[in-house]
């Protein structure tokens, strides 16, 4: 009996260590992206490298570690003024607002897998000159109805903090608060600096369904609660003659979105059409809708080409105004909050893109003796935004185009 038990344990241990000759045990991914945007009088350039490593020591366990960064340079809007103020003044909205930042994020994740279920938990830590972020997340996934149905629940919590200046003791009203000049001395014990906490809770539930051998859908609900300082600490808003105050947005924001996606395989063209629509609403009264179409076709055994198009439209936040100093509606003050954030203004945008993926996975042999599969991908995307109300001191923003290019390489060993 004891000999049999020892043999069983030995066999189990062997089966865990000795794997089939071509089983994948590790995967390395690296991606490099550049983002460039040059609307009126501003230029923003971001380079984003990333590296991820995944190891699967056993069939039931995946261990992932990753790093990503954003190297940012350019200019953003420092002082927000609108047309009625801009008609009589010449506010310097951009030139002193140069931005140089370096965002680093390190992350780790574990996934425990069963036949029909998996559990994932992870942690990420991010730093910028003026921002710190710690995030924990967990998700559970299960299959049902002969793997035709998948349900997934995810939760993430961010413990973030943002740098700000210490306001004068006499500045008791937000209209007297001044914007942060630079990120120098942030997250030190310097007397002129402080930090504000931001808590972010994100909940997501998704349901994926295979309906026929060529049609699959996915329905996702996302809810997010944000509690903390959400303004840009560097930006000031002109509120009246001689009155310039740091941007002041509400501390609480509840957001929710529903996304429906369908993928339909078209046999005659050996490709798939994917359509996604999303509706969004939040407690700042922003409503938005987006529609995205992707067509991806296989060419030969190794190549895939994707074309993408996306349309987006949103309303403005209830406290958004292009000019808080006055003017005819929709200009004018909006109660106790003010913002110069163009992302909170009503606007629409479009995006088109191209992606090419080349994947090589020769059966029953390894490239260079170690690489089981190799994947190289490149993409280019351009988007353009049209702002209904947002101006820079009354000057409409033109050429609001953004370009994003990415190359990536994945290798499985």
């Amino acid at each position, binding site marked *: 009996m004891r000999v049999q038990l020892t043999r069983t344990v030995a066999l189990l241990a062997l089966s865990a260590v000795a794997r089939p000759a071509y089983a994948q045990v590790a995967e390395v991914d690296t991606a490099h992206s550049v983002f460039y945007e040059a609307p009126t009088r501003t230029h923003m350039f971001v380079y984003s490298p990333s590296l991820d490593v995944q190891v699967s020591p056993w069939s039931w366990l995946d261990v992932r570690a990753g790093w990503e960064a954003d190297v940012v340079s350019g200019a953003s809007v420092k002082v927000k003024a609108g047309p009625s103020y801009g008609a009589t003044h010449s506010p310097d909205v951009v030139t002193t607002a140069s931005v140089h930042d370096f965002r680093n994020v390190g992350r780790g994740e574990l996934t425990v897998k069963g036949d029909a279920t998996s559990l994932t938990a992870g942690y*990420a830590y991010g730093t910028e000159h003026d921002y710190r972020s710690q*995030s924990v997340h967990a998700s559970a996934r299960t299959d049902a109805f*002969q793997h035709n149905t998948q349900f997934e629940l*995810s939760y993430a919590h961010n413990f973030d903090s943002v740098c700000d200046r210490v306001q004068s003791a006499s500045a008791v009203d937000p209209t007297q608060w001044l914007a942060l000049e630079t990120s120098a001395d942030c997250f030190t014990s310097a007397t002129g600096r402080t930090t504000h906490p931001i808590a972010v809770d994100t909940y*997501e539930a998704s349901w994926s369904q*295979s309906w026929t*051998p060529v049609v699959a859908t996915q329905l996702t609900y996302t809810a997010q609660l944000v509690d903390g300082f959400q303004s840009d600490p560097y930006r000031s808003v002109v509120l009246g003659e001689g009155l310039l105050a740091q941007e002041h947005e509400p501390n609480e924001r509840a957001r929710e979105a529903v996304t429906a996606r369908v993928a339909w395989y078209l046999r005659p063209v050996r490709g798939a059409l994917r359509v996604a629509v*999303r509706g969004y609403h939040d407690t700042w*009264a922003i409503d938005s809708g987006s529609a995205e179409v992707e067509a991806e076709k296989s060419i030969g055994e190794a190549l895939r080409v994707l074309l993408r198009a996306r349309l987006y439209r*949103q309303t403005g936040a209830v406290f958004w105004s292009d000019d808080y100093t006055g003017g005819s509606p929709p200009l004018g003050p909006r109660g106790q909050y003010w913002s110069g954030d163009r992302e909170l203004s009503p606007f629409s945008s479009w995006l088109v893109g191209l992606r090419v993926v080349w994947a090589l996975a020769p059966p029953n042999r390894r490239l260079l003796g170690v690489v089981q599969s190799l994947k190289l991908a490149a993409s280019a995307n351009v988007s353009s935004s049209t702002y209904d109300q947002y101006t820079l001191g009354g000057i409409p923003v033109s050429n609001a185009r953004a370009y994003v290019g990415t190359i990536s390489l994945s290798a499985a060993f």
Partner: protein
Amino acid sequence: MDGKPRSEREVRARKLAVFLVCLFLFLTAGCATVAPQERAILADPTMQFDAETKHDAALRHAIENREGSMGGTGASGGGCGCN
């Protein structure tokens, strides 16, 4: 999309409609059976909603930072990069 705040009744009616549609689809999901031998196309990379998540992460990040909305692309976090 006209910028007018929606009434609570209207919001509740919309939520109820979404819930009923989801319930209907969920109840019919069990009737949809794709046999294992018919699943080859469903496993094709072109049929995956997130086949290139890591490659497209920077694009999604850029889109989210340029819009006032979010959602539908996963709940994991890690940094802002938005100033």
